[in-house]
């Protein structure tokens, strides 16, 4: 099957696929807004941060470290380390993102673990329209949640008491399992999980997930191997 014949999703399809996550993302947006407001960051700064940063883990890290008096450098370092997983994720989606550099920049800002995961076709490629639809829905959810948290306080209770923090790994597992069809992907997943778990006690938050990308080396194909495979009649 050539690239053009692959099934392509729609923007609305991406919105639908991300809906189960939108509630959880909005709830964490609320808790981010509440935390930022209660730490004395005012209303405007958390709202601007959600609009521009749009990655919850980095935002929580920055706000909680600053709030605890950890200093600007430590706050920014932790937040950027957490965001660095988007470097390999961005490279993996780059071939699918067309258009001008400004358009590609705009689309790339809709990257979130969740939008990337639901847009993944399972063969190493992503569906651009699904990514955009899911990314937009999650972006709006994150902003509405932040606004509600900043202005209304915790309207929906503690996301952790509602178990919503377990929704994200459940989604990732559901998207991971169908990909474990061959030895390469199983090896990659095992290495990824093992590296991440073994680094949690020692490394700063964010580092275990970045280091886990070494698991993708299981997909390395040397030219020699490929040629020998092709030469078999």
């Amino acid at each position, binding site marked *: 099957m050539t690239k053009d014949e692959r099934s392509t999703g729609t923007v609305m399809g991406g919105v639908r696929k991300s809906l189960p*996550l939108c509630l*959880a993302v909005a709830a964490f947006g609320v808790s981010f807004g509440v935390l930022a407001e209660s730490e004395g960051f*005012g209303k405007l700064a958390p709202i601007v*941060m959600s609009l*521009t*940063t749009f990655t919850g883990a*980095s935002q929580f890290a920055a706000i909680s470290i*600053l709030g605890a008096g950890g200093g*600007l450098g430590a*706050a*920014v370092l932790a*937040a*950027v380390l957490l965001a660095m*997983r*988007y470097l*390999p*994720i*961005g*490279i993996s989606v*780059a*071939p699918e*993102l*067309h258009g001008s*550099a400004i358009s*590609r920049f705009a689309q*790339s800002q809709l990257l979130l*673990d969740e939008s990337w*995961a639901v847009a*993944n076709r*399972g063969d*190493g490629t992503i569906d651009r329209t699904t990514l955009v639809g899911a990314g937009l829905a999650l972006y709006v959810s994150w902003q509405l949640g932040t606004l509600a948290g900043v202005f209304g306080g915790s309207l929906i209770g503690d996301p952790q*008491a*509602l*178990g*919503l923090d*377990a*929704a*994200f*790994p*459940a*989604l990732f*597992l*559901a*998207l*991971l399992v169908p*990909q*474990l069809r061959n030895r*390469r992907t199983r090896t990659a997943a095992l290495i*990824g999980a093992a590296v991440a778990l073994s680094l*949690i*006690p020692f490394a700063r*938050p964010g580092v*275990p*997930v970045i280091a*886990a*990308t070494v698991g*993708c080396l*299981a*997909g390395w*194909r040397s030219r020699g191997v490929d040629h020998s495979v092709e030469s078999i009649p």
Partner: protein
Amino acid sequence: MSDVWRAVILVGVGAMVCKAAGPVVIGGRQLPERVQGLVGTLAPALLAALVATQVFGGDHELVLDARALGLAAAAVGIAARAPILMVVIAAAVVTALARAA
């Protein structure tokens, strides 16, 4: 300018650059043949790492808590071929119940 606004700007720029670097530099072009193989295994490696850190990650320690039960519920749902929405809800409900217990 306060540290709060410095953090908003620096973290915002950092996150934007991380997300945009690949798409802006490479955008629309095919990756080299060798790298394509790596991209196919990037998803399982990263997804497995996200599951591991979000379920067993604590403050510089590995922890076994209500989230593990939620993940187990998700695994049962996946094995039973339940829709993703049900899998996600099952994980949240089981985790919430375990915390309330």
